[in-house]
C-alpha cells in the first residue's frame, strides 16, 4: 500500500473534480446536525463533522428498496430490481467503516445478498479519520478510531494537509485522475502516527467503557437474567430509534404490495428494528419478544453476543453514540449499560 499527501488546497480541487465527474455522497450540514447526502457542490462538504444523523448504511441498505416486480396470473413473471449506480462515498468515519466492514460479512453469509453486494461494489470509499467526536461518541473505547481495511482511500487530517493511504487500485486511480497528490515523507508518516495515537482521546473522558472489550461478550452472556433490562425498559417507547440510527443494525421486513390493477406488484424490503413490537410477531399473533424488556435486552445482546459470534468475536457496537443521542428517555446508552454489567 502506498501513502500520499494532499494539501488542503489540493484536496479542495480533488473534491471539486469528484463532484463534477462522479456521483458523490458526502457529509453536509442538516439544520444543527450533519447527514450523508448527494453533493452537488464541493462547498457543501463538511470534513470536520462529529457524527451524522444516520449511518451510511442508507446507501448500502436503503430504508426501503424494491427487490423485484412481479406479475400474477397463469404466466407469473418476476423481474429483479437492483439499483447500484456507481458512487463515491466521501468522508465516512473510521467507526462507520468498521461497521460497514462487519456488514460485508453479514450480508455475505449463507445466501449472499445481491442487492447489498452490488451497491457495495458500486461504491468507492474514501474514509476519514475523525477530527471531532460528538458528546455521545465512545468509539475511542471500542477499537474503532482507525480501520485497516474496507477503504479505497483513507484520509487523516495532519494539519495543513491530508495524509492519504491508498487501499486499492480503484482508490489509486481515483486519486491520480482527480488530484495532484505527493508521496508521503517520513515526517508525514510520523505526523499521521501521532494523530492516530491521539484519536481515542477525542471522545470525552466520561464516554469511556471501563471494561476490557475482550471480556464484554462473556459478561453479557451472564447478564441475561439481570434486573437491569426490566428497570431500563420501563421507560422504553419501543420506538426503534436506537435500531434505525445504528450502523450495525441491518434487520429488514419484506412485504409484497399489489397495484390497483390487482395483477402486478412489487416485493419490497424496509428497515425493521428488534425494539418494535411487531418485530418478532408471527402468524397466529404469537410474539416471541412480547415484553419491552425482552426487546430492549435483545438489541444489546445482539451487539455484544449474537452478532459478535458471526464476526469472530468482534463486537458489533462501534461506539458511534447515535443510539445514545437519539434515545429521548436516555436509557439505551451502551456505555452506561456495559459499565454497569461488565465491571
Amino acid at each position: 500500500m502506498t501513502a500520499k499527501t494532499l494539501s488542503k488546497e489540493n484536496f479542495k480541487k480533488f473534491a471539486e473534480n469528484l463532484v463534477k465527474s462522479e456521483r458523490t455522497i458526502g457529509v453536509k450540514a442538516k439544520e444543527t446536525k450533519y447527514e450523508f447526502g448527494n453533493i452537488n457542490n464541493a462547498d457543501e462538504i463538511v470534513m470536520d463533522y462529529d457524527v451524522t444523523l444516520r449511518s451510511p448504511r442508507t446507501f448500502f441498505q436503503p430504508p426501503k428498496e424494491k427487490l423485484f416486480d412481479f406479475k400474477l396470473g397463469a404466466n407469473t413473471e418476476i423481474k429483479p430490481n437492483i439499483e447500484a449506480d456507481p458512487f463515491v462515498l466521501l468522508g465516512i468515519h473510521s467507526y462507520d467503516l468498521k461497521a460497514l466492514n462487519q456488514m460485508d460479512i453479514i450480508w455475505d453469509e449463507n445466501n449472499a445478498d445481491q442487492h447489498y453486494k452490488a451497491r457495495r461494489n458500486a461504491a468507492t470509499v474514501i474514509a476519514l479519520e475523525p477530527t471531532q467526536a460528538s458528546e455521545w461518541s465512545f468509539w475511542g473505547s471500542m477499537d474503532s478510531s482507525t480501520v485497516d481495511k474496507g477503504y479505497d482511500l483513507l484520509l487523516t487530517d495532519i494539519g495543513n494537509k491530508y495524509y492519504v493511504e491508498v487501499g486499492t487500485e480503484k482508490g489509486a486511480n481515483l486519486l491520480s485522475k482527480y488530484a495532484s497528490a505527493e508521496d508521503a515523507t517520513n515526517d508525514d508518516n510520523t505526523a499521521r502516527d501521532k494523530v492516530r495515537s491521539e484519536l481515542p482521546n477525542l471522545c470525552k473522558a466520561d464516554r469511556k467503557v471501563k471494561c476490557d472489550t475482550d471480556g464484554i461478550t462473556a459478561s453479557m452472556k451472564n447478564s441475561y437474567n439481570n434486573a437491569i433490562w426490566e428497570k431500563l425498559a420501563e421507560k422504553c417507547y419501543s420506538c426503534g430509534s436506537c435500531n434505525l440510527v445504528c450502523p450495525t443494525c441491518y434487520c429488514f421486513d419484506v412485504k409484497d404490495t399489489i397495484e390497483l390493477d390487482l395483477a402486478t406488484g412489487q416485493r419490497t424490503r424496509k428497515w425493521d428494528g428488534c425494539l418494535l413490537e411487531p418485530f418478532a410477531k408471527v402468524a397466529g399473533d404469537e410474539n416471541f419478544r412480547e415484553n419491552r424488556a425482552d426487546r430492549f435486552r435483545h438489541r444489546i445482546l445482539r451487539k455484544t453476543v449474537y452478532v459478535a459470534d458471526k464476526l469472530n468475536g468482534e463486537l458489533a457496537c462501534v461506539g458511534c453514540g447515535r443510539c445514545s443521542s437519539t434515545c429521548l428517555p436516555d436509557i439505551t446508552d451502551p456505555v452506561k449499560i456495559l459499565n454497569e454489567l461488565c465491571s
Partner: protein
Amino acid sequence: MSKPKIAFFDFAGCEGDQLTVVNLEEALLDVLEHVEIVSFREAMKEHSDDYDIAFIEGSCTRVADEARLKDIRKNAKIVVAIGACATSGGINALKNIRPLETVRKEVYGENWKDYDTYRARGIGEVIDVDYKVYGCPMTQSEFVKVVKSLLTGTQPDIPNYPMCVDCKQAGNVCVFEKGQTCVGPITRAGCDACCVTEGATCWGCRGLVNDPNVDAHKEVLEKYNLSVDELTKRMATYFTNELPKG
C-alpha cells in the same frame, strides 16, 4: 364476480377524509374498475342502501347518530372507519375534557338545549368496526392500501410502532433536538412523518400506538420543560378518548 358495492357516510367531521378519496384523482378511476360506489354524498347525488362495504367518516356525537350507525352496520358486510374522528373521536373529543353544559352553551348559545349532543366518540364505541384508516385526514396511500386488501382478501399492513420510525427513515432531525416537543414517540406511524419532514411537529393525528409508553413520554416532556398545562393540551389534541384514565 360482480363488483363489491361501496358507500361512504359522514358523521361529525370536516369531510376531509372523503375529500381525500375524491383527491385520489386518477387512482380513483383505477379503484372504480373494481368497485361500484352506490352512495357518496361528497361526490354524487345518488344513494342506495344496498352496499357491501361502508366507509364511515366522523365521530358519533349525538344519540341520533347511534341509530344511523347501527343501520349502516346492519346493511354492510364490512365497516371501515376512516380518519381520526371516526377511529378515535379525533379533535371533536377535545370537548370531552370540559363540562358538557359549558361546551353546549359556548357553541349553541341560549338555545343550547335544542341541540342534543353528548361525548364525542369514535364509531368503534358504538358499532363493530372491521378496519381503521388513521390520520387527520387519512393518507391517500393508506386508504388505497386498505381498499386493495379488501379486494384481495388480505390483512392491510397498518404499522403498530411509533412515529419515530418514520422520522428516522426520513432522516429528520428530532424535533426535541430543536427545542420543540412532539407526541411522535407514542403516536402510530404510517404517514412517513410528513409533518416533521415539512418542518412542523407531530400532533398525534394517527392516534396512540398500541401499548404506548405514556408515562415515559410525560416524563420526557417534563424534562424538556413542558408545563403540566401544555402537556395536558398536547396529549388531549388527538388522544382524549385513547389515553388511559387517571
